[in-house]
């Protein structure tokens, strides 16, 4: 070797050694081998349970999505992607779904994940206790077969179009059979100290303060996860959640926990990043009590539609972060919107016409009770604007903000209201979350309390839920809008647009349409 070669070699070696040393001394190596950093997210209260198989509470889902997994996850286009299922086949009639399950997956306590867990979860937990899935599985008469440890076959008595879309961790989390079998599931220890297959393990629940998760060292999707810890800080005061992002105490705050008035300011903040407008659709609406003297007449409901200034609600209530309602199912699912009968065409803002319609309906000036959940500030603002709109056409509206429990009782159990302001989450498909708004219902909460019952509508809704192809479904929903936009048992005010905010130190967020899902790929710089 010449002298020059020796020097070059030596320098390269030295540089290599320095670089290696630099990497080793890099600050912020987490406690868990391979895990790096702690991300702190905000929630507003202790969740009622940490078992997503028995509750659709938002915080429950937020935390459970890091601990549990399901057969699939939804990307930003809402297309199902493999998770615990590596592949699947649907029969052409939509009545059989066959899933190949991932091998080599273990629960956080070391036991292996098998098809028996899937069968148990669907039959004993979801089918009996899950607020969304129980009714679906019952009406489908679903039976699960497990020909071997890594195959699950679902046999349904009818087709169900959103079947795959609903197989997410929020509606179909897979729970460990060995910890729940034979127990009273809501009271089981694993409902408070969950054991899942996901990237993070439950560590501790400091009631009133926080919930801590640590890295799952044996996660199947190596080398993920990248974080050492995820902490959910309980921040009861909404204003302090946005403040927390700015002081650095919080790294991520979901739209659900963010007060809307703070969003424009946070979206302009250079140290923060956000994702707007990609979300599972949800609609905010005013539901009429069609059994009340005033709103028994369709003309009275249509008069309200012509008097309520929906673009103004979007501007003032949601700070422009929403889309004015266009029809019975909003426009979150573009494929079903029927532009011919949209609200813009049928109910343009026109106080004079509205007054005329109201007279035609024979409104006698009696006060209208508008009931809503007092704890939701957007509903308060909505109520005030709508009251003003209706006063302009001669309607006397009395606002009744009620505590949530009381509101649920008054609206859904007793049906003592004239108008109620609510919002419904679609959960990924109109057949999952919007059917309950218009189908004939006599009991239960968070569904159709308007008293509206139309057999033709029920028939179309049922068919739209089972029809296998998108075009047929679109035609059915469009036909439904012809009827519902005319009858107006509920007036859709706007389509929700979410804005999720995080500090710029965090990366890898928001790969799913639901901001709570898919945290295995999240990283944080600096700590």
């Amino acid at each position, binding site marked *: 070797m010449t002298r020059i070669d020796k020097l070059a070699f030596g320098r390269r070696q030295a540089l290599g050694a320095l670089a290696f040393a630099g990497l080793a001394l890099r600050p912020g190596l987490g406690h868990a081998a391979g895990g790096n950093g*702690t991300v*702190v997210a905000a929630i507003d*209260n*202790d969740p*009622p*349970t940490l078992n997503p198989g*028995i*509750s*659709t*509470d*938002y915080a*429950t889902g937020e935390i459970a999505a890091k601990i549990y997994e399901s057969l699939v996850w939804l990307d930003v286009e809402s297309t199902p992607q493999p998770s615990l299922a590596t592949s699947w086949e649907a029969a052409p009639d939509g009545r059989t779904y066959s899933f190949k399950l991932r091998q080599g997956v273990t629960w956080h306590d070391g036991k292996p994940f098998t098809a028996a867990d899937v069968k148990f979860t669907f039959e004993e937990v979801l089918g*009996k*206790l*899950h*607020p*969304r899935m*129980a*009714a679906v599985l019952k009406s489908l008469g679903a039976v699960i077969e497990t020909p071997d440890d890594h195959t699950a076959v679902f046999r349904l008595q009818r087709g169900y179009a959103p079947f795959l879309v609903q197989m997410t961790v929020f509606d179909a989390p897979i729970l460990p059979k060995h910890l729940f079998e034979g127990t*009273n599931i*809501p*009271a089981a220890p694993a*409902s*408070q100290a969950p054991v899942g297959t996901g990237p993070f393990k439950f560590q501790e629940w*400091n*009631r*009133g*303060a*926080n919930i*801590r998760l640590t890295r799952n060292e044996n996660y199947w999707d190596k080398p993920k996860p990248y974080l050492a810890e995820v*902490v959910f*800080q*309980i*921040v*009861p*005061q909404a*204003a*302090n959640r946005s*403040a*927390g992002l*700015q*002081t650095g*105490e*919080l790294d991520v705050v979901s739209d659900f926990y963010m007060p809307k008035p703070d969003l424009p300011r946070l979206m302009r903040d250079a140290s923060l990043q956000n994702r707007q407008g990609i979300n599972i659709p949800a609609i905010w609406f005013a539901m009429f009590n069609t059994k009340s003297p005033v709103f028994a007449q369709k003309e009275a409901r249509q008069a309200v539609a012509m008097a309520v200034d929906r673009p103004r609600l979007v501007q003032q209530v949601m700070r422009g972060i929403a889309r004015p309602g266009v029809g019975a199912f909003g426009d979150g699912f573009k494929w079903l919107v029927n532009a011919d009968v949209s609200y813009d065409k049928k109910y343009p803002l026109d106080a004079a016409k509205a007054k005329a319609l109201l007279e035609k309906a024979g409104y006698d000036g009696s006060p209208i009770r508008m009931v809503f959940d007092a*704890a939701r500030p957007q509903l308060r603002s909505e109520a005030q604007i709508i009251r003003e709109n209706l006063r302009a056409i001669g309607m006397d509206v009395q606002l009744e903000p009620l*505590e*949530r*429990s*009381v509101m*649920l*009782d*008054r609206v859904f159990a007793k049906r003592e209201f004239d108008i109620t302001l609510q919002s419904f*989450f679609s959960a990924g498909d109109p057949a999952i979350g919007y059917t*309950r708004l218009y189908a004939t219902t006599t009991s*239960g*909460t*968070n*569904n159709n309390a308007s008293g509206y019952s139309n057999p033709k509508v029920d028939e179309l809704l049922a068919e739209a839920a089972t029809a296998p192809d998108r075009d047929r479904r679109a035609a059915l929903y469009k036909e439904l809008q012809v009827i519902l936009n005319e009858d107006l048992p509920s007036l859709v005010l706007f389509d929700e647009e979410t804005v999720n905010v995080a500090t710029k130190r965090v990366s890898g967020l928001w790969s799913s349409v639901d901001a709570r899902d898919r945290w295995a790929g999240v990283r944080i710089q600096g*700590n």
Partner: protein
Amino acid sequence: MRAGALMWFVVRRLLHAVPLLFCVVVLNFVLIAATPGDPVTILVGDFPAPPGYVEQVKREFGLDQPVYVQLVRYLGHVLTGDLGYSFANRQPVSTLILGRLAATLELTLTALLLASLLGIALGMLAARWRGSWLDSGVQGIASTGYSIPDFWLGQLLILVFSIWLGWLPSQGNMSVRGAPEGIAGFLDHLRYLLLPALALSFRYLALIARITRAAMLEVLSADFILAARSRGASETSVMITHALRNAAAPVITVIGYNLGFILAGSALIETVFGWPGIGRLLFDSISRRDYPVMMAILLMVSVTVVLANLATDILHRAIDPRGGDR
């Protein structure tokens, strides 16, 4: 006051407290039971609960029994020391409360200490230098401080010290990222305690300063003070040994009386600062209709108020030099 008479006094007062506490329990139970809404719908989330699920949970919690049956069962349990089981938290109530009690005690006692020590000191200084700018300052704090809502002050403190200056944290009672151990951990914890304790104490600080100042001024004009001064006693000795001791009675009454309010006010401060205490637990248990937790906390607060009033009375009689048999 003689020891025997004192003991009788205490026993009599405690006996009076028993029917009072009984009424508190029964009245609150009935009020809560009469309120619409039930714990199950809160548990389930925002979709309709599956039929049968509601009945199952109600049976589990004994909510399917008529109200008077539930009340009698509850009273029976309380008398044996069993405070029941929390629906919302799925834990025995006593475990839940003990876990959160420490946080509230820490906050309220710190606030009480701050309010008392600073309030008395300011009141004394204002009386000592009556008419000076210090006196005007203290009087100013005393009148405005009492009118400032504590939760508003809390938000203001967060704005100034957490957001603008970045000196102190805005939320919680401990660091969630790598909490230090030992002494460093304790000091770190104090950083979290400072703002909420300050916000909670301010009103009472103002009140105590005002009462102390007024009481001191009254006492300072008495003959025995003149006598003490003419005997050559130092000003400090006059202020503390002679004047304060005589002025203490109304001040102690105010402090003891306000303990109940500080305890109640802690709920708001705990919400503003995310402090995991009993106040917030009470508020949450009300919205979730978690009856066992609500009842237990109300009972605990009632007992505390009764005991605090009793302690105040005893202290009154003990320190008042004009006391004697009454």
